């Protein structure tokens, strides 16, 4: 029996439930001391003085590190790759955003480090501050790129000409709010120096290798002198994808006190030190012929970034490829503000851009008087018109059909406000979901141990998605053995090199490498004579995989269709999602249990983005006002109905060795629009500003 596809239990479940899984900050290290990051009360200006006299009297304090005495970190502001971040590691007195690191205190206990940090008396010289995206929209500039591989602007056909002659138009502005990732596990790092030229980090990271590269760069060390270990990660969602300032600050503090240092951020510090999904303002124009055929599309995206680093929320990319349309223009602009640098957040670009695009399509459907699903089928993209390539596979029609059928879409009465249940308004909405199927180079090693069992080794990290589990399944099938005979060792730069667990690419990248390595080992085994095969010798196969040559001929995306029911209290404005049915076609499903969890997690995030999550910045100080999980609302169980997930098992021989597209992010991409469209259907009110809170419906 093959293991791939089976919904076997997570390999790490038992350890996690029993509290035995060791996260970065749990690692027992002899002689450990504790660092606390002191952050700026000011939002823009300079620190003019730090009086540490009171802090130094706190018992147990070992060091107060400020720009005056901090060792130099030569590479703090040097980026090698786009997701490297410019770090603030107390090298100068400038304050570029609120809650920026301005000092680090080290003490024998975390409580004493924090108490001493709070005892610092800091004087500031403020400068004028600008943090409002809306007020500074006109200051938008063109970024170098909209993503690692994407140009900021695109154009095909003649948008203006087609718009002028089109029969029906929708022209609207959509906005999204700051979203923080708020993983349950706070960011934590333990830094251990071996002398002055070798560093070990236990870090909560989505990428042990990128973290190694960034820290080696920051401290001017050869990468092989830095080892990063991350056996479990309690949620990442993008904010553990880059090595942020606190990781370098832990290493800096450890160098100063010449002892291992642990540094864990507070929930409040997560609001400023590890990125966020930036606000977007999106202007969308759609034009269609009377029969619903799209004639012109335009999507102009404005998002915020810091003044010292660049991150672009690539919301317009989806508009380039999702539908068939001959005349399409997209642009991305960034506005530099006195804010920390934003970053990747679950489906960066797709989650926000698809909200704007798919709500605009719903508006167009109402203008035309056609069913929203019909409109999408009418404009079905038979190939990727942006890259001008065929799809490696696309089963979106099947997704619409299956999800609509399970949802009961054909019973929908299109008129807004026409469906009621007692005093509640009932609304049904839908949207398309999509996410690119990415792959990066990855290496893996598979060994036969002396006991005859097998060990998979790869540097990659399991950020909660099920990587431990699926790698064992992939190897077991390639080796032709039961999955119980395969052990997985990951989360360590001492193991073969793998990419960041971001962009939904771990299964496709590292999974492909594991498959090939296991196949190579199987060949070695098969070549051995029966007596040699049973001998207690260790056998190893290690290799690196990259994209299949064939793959470059195709455009690779996962697709889905998401249908949502909301109930709205017309007097109180309260919206609750009461049903959600999603169908996804994302290549081969490796494990139906962990896959379902990933899809559901994305859908829950979509509920948060649509209805609840909203980090609010005080416009005078730049400080985040919603600083904890009571004031920042992630969905709780009561906000989430039974989520119905249909997984189409799609055959895709081109996408990669294992035929699987990423699944970690696509689940969020259609939800915000589906919910917003359902709210319109329920109430007749078109809310184009997320989140849809009840005051917008009163």
């Amino acid at each position, binding site marked *: 029996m093959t293991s791939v596809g089976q919904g076997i239990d997570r390999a790490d479940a038992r350890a996690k439930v029993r509290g035995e899984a060791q996260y970065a900050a749990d690692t027992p290290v002899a002689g450990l001391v504790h660092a606390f990051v002191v952050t700026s*009360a000011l939002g823009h200006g300079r620190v003019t003085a730090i009086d540490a006299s009171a802090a130094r009297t706190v018992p147990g304090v070992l060091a107060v590190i400020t720009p005056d005495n901090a060792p130099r970190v030569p590479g703090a502001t040097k980026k090698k790759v786009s997701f490297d971040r410019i770090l603030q590691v107390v090298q100068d007195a400038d304050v570029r955003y609120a809650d920026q690191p301005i000092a680090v205190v080290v003490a024998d206990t975390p409580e004493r480090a924090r108490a001493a940090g709070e005892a610092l008396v800091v004087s500031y010289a403020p400068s004028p501050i600008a943090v409002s995206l809306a007020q500074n929209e006109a200051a938008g500039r063109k970024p170098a790129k909209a993503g690692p591989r994407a140009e900021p602007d695109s154009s095909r056909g003649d948008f203006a000409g087609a718009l002028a002659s089109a029969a029906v138009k929708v022209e609207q502005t959509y906005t999204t709010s700051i979203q923080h990732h708020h993983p349950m596990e706070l960011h934590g790092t333990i830094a251990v120096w071996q002398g002055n030229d070798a560093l070990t980090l236990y870090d909560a990271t989505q990428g042990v290798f990128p973290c190694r590269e960034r820290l080696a760069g920051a401290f001017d060390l050869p990468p092989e002198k830095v080892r990063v270990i991350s056996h479990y990660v309690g949620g990442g969602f993008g904010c553990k994808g880059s090595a942020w300032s606190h990781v370098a600050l832990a290493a800096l503090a450890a160098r100063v006190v010449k002892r291992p240092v642990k540094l864990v951020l507070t929930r409040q510090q997560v609001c400023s030190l590890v990125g966020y999904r930036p606000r977007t303002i999106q202007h969308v124009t759609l034009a269609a012929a009377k029969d619903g055929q799209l004639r012109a599309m335009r999507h102009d995206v404005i998002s915020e970034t810091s003044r010292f680093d660049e991150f672009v929320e690539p919301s317009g990319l989806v508009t380039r490829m999702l539908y068939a349309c001959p005349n399409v223009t997209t642009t991305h602009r960034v506005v530099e503000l006195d804010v920390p640098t934003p970053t990747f957040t679950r489906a960066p670009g797709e989650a926000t851009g698809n909200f704007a695009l798919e709500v605009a399509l719903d508006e167009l459907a109402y203008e035309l008087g056609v069913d929203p699903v019909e409109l999408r089928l009418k404009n079905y993209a038979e190939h990727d018109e942006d890259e001008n390539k065929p799809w490696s596979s696309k089963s979106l029609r099947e997704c619409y059909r299956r999800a609509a059928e399970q949802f009961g879409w054909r019973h929908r009465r299109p008129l807004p406000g026409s469906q009621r249940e007692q005093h509640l308004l009932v609304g049904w909405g839908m949207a398309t979901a999509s996410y690119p199927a990415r792959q990066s180079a990855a290496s893996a090693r598979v060994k036969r141990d002396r006991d005859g069992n097998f060990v998979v080794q790869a540097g990659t990290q399991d950020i909660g998605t099920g990587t431990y589990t699926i790698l064992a399944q992939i190897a077991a099938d390639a080796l032709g053995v039961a999955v119980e005979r395969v052990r997985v060792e990951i989360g360590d730069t001492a193991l073969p090199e793998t990419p960041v667990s971001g962009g939904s690419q771990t299964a496709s990248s590292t999974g492909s490498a594991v498959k090939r390595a296991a196949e190579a080992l199987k060949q070695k085994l098969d070549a051995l004579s029966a007596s040699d095969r049973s001998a207690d010798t260790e056998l190893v196969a290690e290799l690196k995989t990259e994209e299949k040559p064939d793959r470059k001929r195709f455009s690779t995306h996962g697709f889905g269709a998401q249908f949502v029911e909301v109930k709205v209290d017309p*007097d109180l404005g309260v919206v609750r999602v009461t049903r959600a049915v999603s169908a996804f076609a994302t290549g081969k499903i490796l494990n139906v249990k962990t896959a379902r969890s990933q899809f559901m997690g994305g859908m829950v995030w979509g509920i948060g983005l649509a209805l609840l999550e909203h980090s609010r910045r005080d416009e005078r100080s730049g*400080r985040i*006002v919603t600083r904890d999980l*009571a004031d920042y609302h992630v969905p709780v169980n009561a906000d989430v109905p039974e989520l119905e997930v249909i997984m189409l098992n799609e055959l895709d021989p081109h996408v990669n060795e294992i035929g699987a597209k990423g699944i970690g992010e696509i689940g969020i991409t259609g939800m915000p629009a589906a919910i917003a469209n359902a709210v319109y259907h329920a109430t007749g009110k078109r809310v184009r500003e997320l989140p849809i*809170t*009840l005051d917008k419906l009163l």
Partner: protein
Amino acid sequence: MKSFDYLPAQKLEEAVARGEPRTSRFIAGGTLLVDLMRLDVERPDLVVDLNGVLSSDIAWNEAGLTLGALARNTDVAYDDTVRREFPVLSEAILAGASPQIRNLATTGGNLLQRTRCAYFRDAAVPACNKRKPGSGCAALEGYTRMHAILGVSERCIAAHPSDMAVALLALDAAVHTRRATGERQIPLGDLHTLPGTTPELETVLEPGEVITRVVVPRSPRGRRSTYLKVRDRASFAFALSSAAVALELEQGTIRSARVALGGVGVKPWRAAATEAALVGRPATSETYRAAAKLATSGAKTTPDNAFKVPLTERVVARALERAGALA
């Protein structure tokens, strides 16, 4: 959090005496005090633990319901007598916080919980008249979606966050206290003070004065009472607006009424004008809606929280409707 001394009080007199300095704080459930200490907002020198000197009993007798100051929120909410005689109290408690917090939080502590104003809770914000009298109020021109619209002053617009207190206010509860000079009884409506020019003062309690119990009198309105809370998230969120209502009906006419509001006042807020507009009128939707219109009279809003005026009127009308329909 700064270092502090901890005293598990053995006798009530000891707690009152040691709790008297302004730098002392009492701890019962600790669900808020510890939170604020970790945020460096509360910086006591001494924490006096009341868990050894107060009662957690819940008793029902001729006088009504007596809740020991240490009665845990969970125990009160699920008490059979409370659910039968004062459903509004059970509903209000269960509409607040999370099960874990309710298991620890106490009756006395709940009444004394401090505001959720984000500017109060962020010690790095220099202007907060509650934290630092005379320093100003960052909220006035700030982000105020969660802030009060009733009872606000030029110095403070922080909302009182309790759900339970709103229900107790609608039930004419009184707190019994112990201070250096003896015991006293304070009607719940008089416990909390308006911010005025002294937002740092939140109750009439003297330094060292301890709430020992809360008494809810028997009431002809108790069983016909309900709590309606509207919030952004379906659970574990503070009220945008809430209403505790208790009605006494006689042959379709409202004989007496209590209406108290949460999420909108600087303290648990009695909607006296609404109550007056109900008494003697027929128990109909028209009556409820007309009376609810008066609930927010005197409101002072900001652009962020102006929606609370229409919202509260609708919340009150819905709650009255619901109470009126109770069997």
